[in-house]
């Protein structure tokens, strides 16, 4: 399986502050990857490193088999819709399409025009007069019509209202299905990711907490409820993500590749949101673990 995005010991520092540290990733091709984490966790930094807007302070990153933005051929493989979906305010939609056609060797003009028509946008309208949702759609159109192997979207729906948000995501998913794109998109809302993605990366405090196929993650994370006991007494294959105790009862959220047979536990399944939130709220000492990237291997 070829990797669409591969990072090794990747880190980025701005002056004194690390925006991303010790990031190891191996994202397979053909996936729709959701990058989730709280604001300021380093999501934009990771995506900007992947698009070549930033260069790493430490480690390496490879996208579609090459170092990002190293030449026209590499640029052609990756589409990037940046945060706040910037467009040229003074240029019309037609100008933007023309820019795309002039600057991208693989430009699919018919696709771009068809999308703009379907969205009901006027080609002569200036981008500066579009609504947030329309501007996001224009930026997405530019990204898709470039016909990249990988499309990266940084918080594409953050500024949109719930309706525009859903329309945008639906539209993106249709395009993905149609053009067999790999997609990496970031969001601080798990619900966006849950609806659209089949692979998730959780980034908290500049470190990757967990990354993996969503179905696998859901399959190997369980909530264990039972009489109060010390989490350290669990079998070796069961890793505690979070633990909470009352006087009589202990609730654990564990990751394990094998089934839980201990009859003293009542085992219940977890949704993606529960899992992501558990990793986000993990106690500070666990976050500072020397092996931060807890990766689910397939």
């Amino acid at each position, binding site marked *: 399986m070829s990797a669409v995005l591969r990072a090794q010991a990747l880190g980025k520092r701005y002056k004194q502050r690390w925006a991303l540290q010790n990031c190891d990733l191996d994202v397979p091709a053909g996936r729709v990857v959701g990058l989730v984490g709280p604001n300021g966790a380093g999501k934009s930094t990771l995506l900007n490193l992947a*698009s*070549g*807007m*930033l*260069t790493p302070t430490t480690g390496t990153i490879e996208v579609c088999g090459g170092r990002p*933005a190293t*030449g*026209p051929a590499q*640029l*052609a493989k*990756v*589409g*990037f819709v*940046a*945060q*706040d979906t*910037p*467009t*040229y*305010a*003074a*240029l019309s939609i037609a*100008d933007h399409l*023309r*820019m*795309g056609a*002039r*600057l*991208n*060797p*693989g430009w699919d003009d018919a696709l771009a025009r068809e999308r703009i028509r379907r969205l009901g946008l006027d080609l002569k309208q200036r981008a500066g007069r579009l609504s947030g949702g329309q501007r996001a759609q224009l*930026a997405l159109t*530019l990204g898709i019509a*470039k016909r990249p192997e990988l499309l990266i979207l940084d918080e594409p729906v953050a500024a949109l209202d719930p309706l525009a948000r859903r329309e945008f995501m639906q539209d993106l998913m249709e395009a993905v299905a149609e053009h067999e794109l790999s997609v990496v998109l970031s969001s601080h809302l798990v619900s966006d990711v849950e609806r659209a993605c089949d692979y998730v990366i959780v980034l908290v405090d500049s470190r990757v907490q967990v990354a993996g196929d969503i179905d696998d993650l859901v399959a190997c994370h369980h909530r264990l409820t039972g009489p109060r006991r010390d989490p350290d007494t669990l079998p070796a294959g069961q890793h505690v993500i979070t633990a909470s105790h009352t006087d009589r009862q202990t609730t654990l959220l564990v990751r394990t590749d094998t089934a839980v047979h201990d009859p003293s536990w009542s085992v219940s399944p977890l949704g993606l949101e529960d899992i992501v939130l558990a990793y986000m709220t993990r106690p500070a000492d666990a976050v500072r673990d020397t092996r931060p990237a807890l990766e689910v291997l397939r």
Partner: protein
Amino acid sequence: MIWLTWRQFRTQAAVVFAAVAALAATLAVTGPQLADLYRTAGSSLVDQVSSSDQSVYYAGLLIVLAVPAVIGMFWGAPLISRELETGTHYLAWNQGVTRTRWLAIKLGLGAAAAMTAAGLTSLAVSWWSSPIDRAVNGGGATDTYFPRLDPVAFAARGVVPTAHAAFAFVLGVALGLVIRRTLPAMATTLVVYAAVQISVPLWLRPYLAATDRTTVPIEPDGAPISIQEGAKQIVTHPEVPGAWVTSQQTLNAAGQPVPVPASFADCLHTESGPPTLQQFDRCLADLGALGYKQQVTYHPAGNFWALQWTETGLYLGLALALTGFCAWWIRRRLT
């Protein structure tokens, strides 16, 4: 990429080139009569120029001096800083064109347009002013008009404005790249460009071509003489038409450079008010009788083109160096 550059640049370009065209038209209307006047009056033209033509002369000087600064501020500084400010560089640098190529085309076309605009302006103004310049170089009075070599007129004639414009444009781009915000970049561009334009004639241009030297006697009836810094310095105004005096030095009877003797200041001393003209002449005569002379270093009018081309090369070299800096910065520092 050329199309995008043109599309983003065309409004600014149209404004400047329309202004250049308007200026050229105005000059074309009034220029021929000035040329006719020179044909009939020769160097005494300087006393016969109409007051409206005199205004055009000064306006022309100011415009050519201002064009590179305006280009640096309004074309150069916003070129990249506006993209960085609005985030559109994320869009531009993720098309199928590397950011180095993006920069090269923007800089190349912008600098070419800048040089064309400044070159046309300078050509029009130099042509219009040429009767006056020739009259001054031919011995006409210089109290109203500048010799072409004078620092004020030099930067408004010939080919140097093109190089000034190229430099100002790339300077604006570089500062916009570093400062990342349009308005501060524009202001800084103006300040830095003005500082360079003041420094070069003061400290650099005098050495860009070989100077001539002449020694003039200090006497009441010779070349006009003025004093500076409370009679500690003497300035003579030798009658070399069109010359640009770069330094002056008082020599003693043995021909050695010396400060002006204190006896001269004592001689000029009065109880109140300035010395009378008779007193001034007597003191000069006394100084001259002691053997003091004044050595004047100057660029003769014939150095004009040598200085023009050397300075053009200098500014184009600076522009190239700044271009290299921009390329380095956009690849290594904006990441």
